[in-house]
């Protein structure tokens, strides 16, 4: 494989010096949309297989050592902190590791030295004195936040009304436009930043002073990237000039970010069609073959799978499975009507076959009604085979947000690349908020008085109007405290743990979305529906706190396409969103809201008392905006239709929905399964829904459900004209289902 062709050089030169920086324009002009099927794809090379085996072995050792292979306790991680590391230098086409050894974790203590100390201690190690000494002379994000938090915020936090706030870990969610380093090279980017710095002049407001400091630190980060590149023998100062270089440069930019930061989610963006331009050029010039093109993508993705952050055990309680959320958005359409699907979109998905299924990188297909049929089919196939794809509504996001050049921050959030960023804010517990509305403003478990002016609810049964009035008051007060906490958090994060590597690859004064969140919307909808359409009698303890609710009669439940209850969910979302929007944000950020829990729905449930929908104390919440387990009794289309009624405009940070199914429930023959899955996605998104995580359960998962049925309360098995909840069958019949589900030969 040669490094450069005359064509690519020519192509790059034409684009160069054509500032302002415009990656979007470059992609639009040079991309080759692909309308065909998956027949061109190639399997892994021997080299890829050998290299991946080294990674698999290392991951096995990592598991054996309790999930963490090694920690460098001597060094504060930075872009230039570590010597180059390799998986196997001979076999690697794309190089670069976070530390000098595969899977060795580095300390990034500016989020909070105490958390890092704790995480290191959990592994029986100790942070070097030298490192600890640094923090005798300086502060960190965690320290900064708590020096500014008021008592009320602390109370909200300790009672679990606001949870998971990034006040002792890095906020993440910012997506650097990593393509910039490949397209322009560091020298040009530094020049551009210097021009920006020069332009920040005149009467210096606080904003301008801060901006000057930020740009200066970004320039430093770009210089550090060049040093990082040099250590691997790469000249990142200049633009990439081949497919291999473009992928390598881009990876180096991402590597710089994950060496400096350990944000909860650090997405990659939308890089596949950018890479495709270089790959197409090299393929056309005969410099590489399809096998080699796939090999480059496989090796790049392999690197992304090896990204690790040092986390404390408590972190895993909220975000199970040591996730890094290297989210890559694939597909979608250009606003000019062409598809953004390229052959490299396919190549990215093909890595799930070549390297095996994996949750990372978090491959997210931007679904449009207009996507080429060949790509839709391939997505359906990959979903069924690997369960490793999630889907988001590209038509809806482009229409609502404007730009067609965007990535997905963390799990579900739209982020225009290089132009806007996001301030992550975890979420508030809505069911707990409702319970405070029923308990005169007291938290339901401790009895602590939290909210003001919440009138007692007298009478045997709950009155819908009175409950609503109290609930709205509660949401208003919570929105105000939430907003205060968020402003403090992001002010301090900028001050102590500024993402200079990522922001060096973003416009100097970007737009910002303040990303608020809410958990438990389906419990709210069902609770209010129960109060409205059935009779709900609260059971109170001697202190007058609700400990249980008796529901008399039936009521419409969220997840059955019943407007009467679905409208309640939509209304509360809108109301809470509007309450949040009443408060001014740090850096003039624009408030947005997500209905998303990731895996924290279990933890929220444990810490929340019984709710008026009949849910018992401690019972888990449904994830994201999902209907509550077992209450959607009319099948998947009805459940999806309910979620689709939540208005994206009221939850611009995203509305998450997880859909689990076994392959047979999608249809009998494989062709039917693919067809029905793509049709389901078309239908769901046509209704204006935002996100769908598709979980096609494999044999292994069903075996796990057989062993641990409590983990799968909503697993439904469908065969001809018949549906049953898996956990209700006897062991013998569960086994029969497993056998039956997977005897798909013939």
């Amino acid at each position: 494989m040669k490094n450069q062709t005359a064509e690519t050089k020519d192509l790059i030169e034409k684009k160069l010096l054509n500032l302002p920086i415009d990656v979007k324009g470059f992609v639009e002009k040079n991309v080759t949309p692909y309308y065909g099927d998956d027949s061109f794809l190639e399997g892994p090379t021997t080299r890829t297989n050998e290299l991946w085996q080294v990674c698999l072995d290392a991951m096995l050792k990592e598991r054996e050592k309790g999930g963490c292979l090694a920690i460098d306790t001597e060094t504060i991680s930075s872009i230039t902190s570590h010597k180059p590391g390799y998986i196997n230098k001979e076999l690697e086409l794309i190089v670069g590791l976070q530390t000098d050894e595969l899977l060795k974790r580095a300390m990034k203590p500016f989020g909070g030295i105490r958390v890092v100390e704790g995480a290191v201690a959990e592994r029986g190690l100790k942070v070097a004195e030298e490192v600890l000494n640094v923090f005798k002379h300086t502060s960190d994000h965690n320290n900064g936040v708590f020096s500014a938090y008021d008592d009320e915020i602390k109370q909200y936090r300790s009672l679990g009304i606001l949870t998971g706030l990034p006040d002792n870990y890095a906020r993440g969610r910012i997506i650097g436009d990593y393509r910039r380093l490949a397209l322009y090279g560091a020298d040009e980017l530094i020049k551009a930043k210097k021009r920006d710095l020069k332009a920040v002049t005149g009467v210096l407001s606080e904003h301008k002073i801060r901006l000057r400091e930020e740009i200066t630190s970004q320039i430093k980060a770009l210089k550090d990237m060049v040093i990082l590149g040099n250590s691997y023998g790469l000249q990142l100062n200049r633009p990439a000039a081949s497919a291999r270089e473009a992928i390598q440069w881009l990876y180096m930019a991402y590597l710089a970010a994950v060496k400096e930061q350990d944000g909860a989610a650090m997405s990659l963006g939308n890089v596949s069609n950018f890479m495709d331009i270089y790959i197409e050029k090299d393929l056309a010039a005969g410099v590489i073959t399809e096998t080699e093109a796939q090999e480059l993508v496989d090796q790049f993705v392999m690197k992304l799978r090896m990204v690790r952050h040092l986390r404390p055990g408590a972190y895993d309680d909220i975000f199970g499975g040591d996730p890094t959320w290297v989210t890559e958005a694939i597909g979608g359409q250009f606003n000019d009507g062409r598809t953004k699907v390229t052959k490299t979109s396919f190549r990215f998905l093909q890595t799930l076959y070549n390297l095996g299924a994996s949750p990372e990188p978090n491959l997210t297909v931007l679904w449009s009604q207009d996507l080429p049929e060949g790509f839709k089919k391939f997505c359906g196939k990959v979903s069924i085979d690997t369960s490793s794809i999630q889907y988001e509504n590209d038509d809806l996001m482009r229409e609502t947000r404007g730009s067609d050049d965007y990535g997905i921050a963390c799990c579900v959030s739209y982020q225009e690349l290089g132009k806007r960023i996001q301030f992550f804010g975890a979420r508030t517990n809505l069911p707990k908020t409702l319970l405070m509305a029923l308990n005169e403003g007291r938290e339901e478990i401790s009895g602590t008085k939290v909210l003001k002016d919440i009138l007692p609810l007298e009478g045997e049964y709950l009155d819908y109007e009175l409950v609503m009035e109290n609930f709205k008051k509660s949401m208003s007060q919570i929105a105000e405290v939430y907003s205060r906490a968020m402003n403090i958090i992001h002010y301090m994060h900028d001050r102590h743990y500024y993402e200079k590597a990522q922001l060096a690859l973003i416009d100097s004064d970007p737009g910002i979305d303040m990303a608020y969140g809410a958990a438990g919307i389906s419990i709210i909808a069902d609770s209010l529906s129960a109060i409205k359409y059935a009779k709900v009698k609260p059971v109170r303890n001697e202190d007058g706190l609700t400990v249980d609710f008796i529901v008399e009669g039936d009521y419409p439940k969220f997840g059955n396409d019943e407007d009467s209850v679905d409208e309640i969910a939509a209304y509360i979302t809108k109301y809470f969103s509007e309450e949040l929007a009443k408060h001014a944000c740090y850096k003039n950020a624009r408030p947005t809201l997500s209905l998303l829990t990731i895996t924290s729905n279990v933890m929220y449930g444990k810490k929340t008392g019984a709710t008026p929908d009949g849910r018992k104390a401690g019972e888990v919440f449904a994830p994201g905006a999902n209907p509550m387990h077992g209450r959607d009794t009319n099948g998947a289309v009805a459940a999806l239709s309910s979620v689709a009624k939540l208005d994206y405009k009221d939850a611009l940070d995203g509305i998450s929905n997880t859909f689990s199914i076994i392959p047979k429930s999608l249809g009998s023959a494989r062709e039917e399964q693919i067809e029905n899955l793509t049709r389901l996605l078309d239908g769901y998104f046509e209704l204006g829904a935002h996100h769908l995580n598709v979980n096609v359960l494999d044999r292994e998962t069903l075996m796990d459900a057989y062993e641990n049925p409590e983990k799968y309360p909503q697993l439904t098995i469908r065969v001809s004209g018949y549906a049953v909840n898996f956990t209700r069958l006897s062991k013998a019949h569960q086994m029969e289902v497993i056998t039956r589900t997977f005897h798909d030969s013939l």
Partner: protein
Amino acid sequence: MKSETITRSGNLMADLQKSELLRVHSIETFGTHDGPGIRLVIFVQGCQFHCLYCANPDTISIEGGTLMRIDEIVEKAKKQKPFFGKNGGVTISGGEPLLQRAMLSELFLRLRKEGIHTTLDTNGKVIDKQTKQLLETTDLVMLDIKHINDDWHHKITRLSNVNTLKFAEYRESTGKPMWLRYVLVPGYSDQEEYLHQLGKHFKDYKSIQKIEILPYHQLGMHKWEALGWKYELEDVKSPDIASLKKATDILQQYFKEVSVG
């Protein structure tokens, strides 16, 4: 018990007729096994047959279920249109839909006006004027043949297959599409000679697009227990791959498409 149910069903159904109500057991909005594409499947309540292996014995009694207005069902189907694509639509299954055939004619008529594809999953036990009327608005018939031999048919369902075969003959005469469905029960419906007989009986039917083999399963057994009924096929296993293959091979000699559901 059975005959009593049937007598009573006659009156009950007449009452329903006037009020435009259907007696419905349950609804599945993501039906992927009861007709082409994604389907809204309405499982109606009540059946004349009492099949030994019935997977939905709770649909047999005519008295259970809930009453739904047909305009409600039409509304549901209209809402679900984005999911239907070019293949999907509404399937009426059961229970046995023909017990409520007059009302279903009205329902299918309205669905058709909305451009929605209609499928009837039936045992074909009733073939009269009203059934014929219903078939006019039925885009696809899925006819369940329990057994081609009448003695075995009795053993399995307690009733005869004569009407079912007449039903098939009538559908054939209309020239409109039909699928056959055949539950393969080891020891009951997997005899080679009868599979050949089934094939021979239908081989010249032009309306039959395919035959679906539905492998017997015991997933409905817990429902029998819940009803306090004895499940007689407790010891009968699902057909193994070899016997499914054998049945497929035989039927392929007579039908242009054989699938396993």
